[in-house]
């Protein structure tokens, strides 16, 4: 656990990480359904006036309801910043892979949106560890690229989106 980043953050060796490749998680559920407030807070941040996010009449006519911005996909399964329980906040699989790196940064993302995610949908995600690279040196520091694939489902079992993400788990150059 790292207090610095606020998530359960696993440490270990590259060999530990490689042994985890292929691991697939049980479904992890969002604490709440997708809300208009979250949709519009995100759209306001991006300054995107698309009526699919703002106009319930237009969005219902066109899509069946207010649409969650596709770019918010990963955020819909991030737990709130504080929970009123002793249970740890469980973050995505990628940062729970045991590796030496003390921090991370995202490197690439490939998302496919099969059907629109709408206000009221309650999502779950199943994550798989696809690969962990051997040690690499970049301008930021020394570390490993961690590739995961996430499948997002609606309550009724419909697959709504897939998300292949690669992050760089590293120790900053000044600290290594």
């Amino acid at each position: 656990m790292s207090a610095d980043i606020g998530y359960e953050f696993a440490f270990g060796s590259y060999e530990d990480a490689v042994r985890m490749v292929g691991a697939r998680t049980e479904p992890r559920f969002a604490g709440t359904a997708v809300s208009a407030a979250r949709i519009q807070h995100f759209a306001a941040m991006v300054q995107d006036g698309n009526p699919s996010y703002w106009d319930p009449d237009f969005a219902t006519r066109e899509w069946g309801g207010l649409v969650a911005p596709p770019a918010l996909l990963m955020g819909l399964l991030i737990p709130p910043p504080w929970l009123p329980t002793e249970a740890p906040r469980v973050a995505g699989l990628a940062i729970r892979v045991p590796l030496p790196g003390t921090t991370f940064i995202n490197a690439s993302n490939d998302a496919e949106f099969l059907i629109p995610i709408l206000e009221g949908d309650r999502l779950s995600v199943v994550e798989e560890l696809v690969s962990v690279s051997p040690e690499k040196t970049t301008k930021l520091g020394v570390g490993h690229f961690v590739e995961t694939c996430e499948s997002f489902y609606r309550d009724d079992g419909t697959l709504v989106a897939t998300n292949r993400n690669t992050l760089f788990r590293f120790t900053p150059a000044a600290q290594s």
Partner: protein
Amino acid sequence: MTWDEIFAPADLPEVVDEITYQRVVMNAATTWDYFPGHFDPAYARSQGHPTIFVNTMHIAGFIDRVATDWAGPRSRVVRRRMRILGSIYAGDSMVGRARVVEKRCDKTSAATRYLVDLEVNVCNQRGELCCPAEVTLELSR
């Protein structure tokens, strides 16, 4: 805009968005991504960054905005591939330059899908390429 009204190749209008500290903090708040590099300048500096920076979701949202502002609200992002080559920091601008590279019919499923492929490059105000992306939009005819 309909699929029939689109021609390839074609350039989209350039979009510039100034990223203030408030926007970066909103980024953490709206996505619930409280990685401290997105809100704590001291942490960001300790990791080798000049200050706090936006996350992948913010850049993705900007890419989608560039695409659907142009194609209209009846278009839908069905796929987005992006690589993060550099960070967008508080005080930077995101500059989106995009072009249509292909239009095609996808007949692999029961209903034909009318698709348009875009290349979207997100640079900072110094012209440094921070995030090359490919976006596929679905439109009606």
